[in-house]
């Protein structure tokens, strides 16, 4: 049973990922991205990461992709992509680099080269408590300092986004307008 679910989710994830890359229309790319994120969430559930699966669906599929779609619709870039390539050798070279990376990663997975981190073992994953309880305990004891820094990071991101998209007021000199292009 688990094998069947795994095969279905893995196939869906890979096919949707290919859809993200190959779709001509950015809206189709965004919708394929939702498919991949859901499939990865299913894989999370299969590995007993229930909390992360829920967060994945809520934050990624619910917020990030919606933000992507907002921007696509706002900018109206959902028509065409410039297809003539100024660097004609770039695309084959990129595909070759991707193939090399894939073979390298698969070789790493097959071998037992990367077995370094065993000594850094933290609190156990298995046990009688639920997954959420365990993550909460670890997050608010071992990882409390990174957690606090995370909140600062989010505030900085919000302020940065507002500063970046703010229209300059009419009276303001456009000193930050590097190339002096008229609006």
């Amino acid at each position, binding site marked *: 049973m688990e094998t069947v679910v795994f095969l279905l989710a893995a196939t869906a994830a890979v096919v949707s990922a290919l859809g*993200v890359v190959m779709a001509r229309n950015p809206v189709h*790319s965004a919708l394929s*991205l939702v498919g991949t994120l859901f499939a990865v969430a299913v894989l999370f559930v299969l*590995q007993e990461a229930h909390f992360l699966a829920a967060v994945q669906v809520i934050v990624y599929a619910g917020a*990030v992709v919606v933000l992507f779609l907002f921007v696509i619709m706002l900018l109206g870039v959902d028509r065409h992509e410039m297809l003539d390539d100024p660097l004609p050798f770039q695309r084959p070279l990129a595909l070759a680099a*991707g193939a090399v990376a894939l073979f390298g990663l698969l070789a790493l997975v097959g071998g037992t080269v990367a077995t370094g981190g065993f000594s*850094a073992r*933290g609190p156990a994953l298995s046990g009688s408590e639920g997954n959420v309880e365990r993550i909460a305990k670890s997050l608010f004891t071992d990882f409390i300092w990174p957690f606090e820094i995370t909140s600062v990071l989010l505030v900085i991101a919000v302020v940065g986004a507002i500063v*970046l998209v703010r229209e300059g007021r009419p009276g303001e000199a456009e000193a930050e307008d590097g190339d002096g292009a008229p609006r």
Partner: protein
Amino acid sequence: MSVDTQYYLIVAAILFTVGATGVLVRRNALVMFMCVELMLNAVNLTFVTFARALDDIGGQVFVFFVLVVAAAEVVVGLAIIVAIFRKRQGATADDLNLLKG
């Protein structure tokens, strides 16, 4: 019966490669961004897989932080794309050659 760790890692490797190739191949800045998200998700899958394989909750907590950083990155990145689009009327990465000598 449970699926072996290696198969999850293979799926993650394929997802990561597809994302990386997408960043190299596509020229629409928005689609490049989505491919970066794809790569982040592949790494998250690896983290969760190793968290189960090594019986260590740290991997899952780390995925939580990766999610937060990815959300912040999307917010700032999309703001930059919107700001660029206002000036240039296009979101193709090759048009951004202001620093070219």
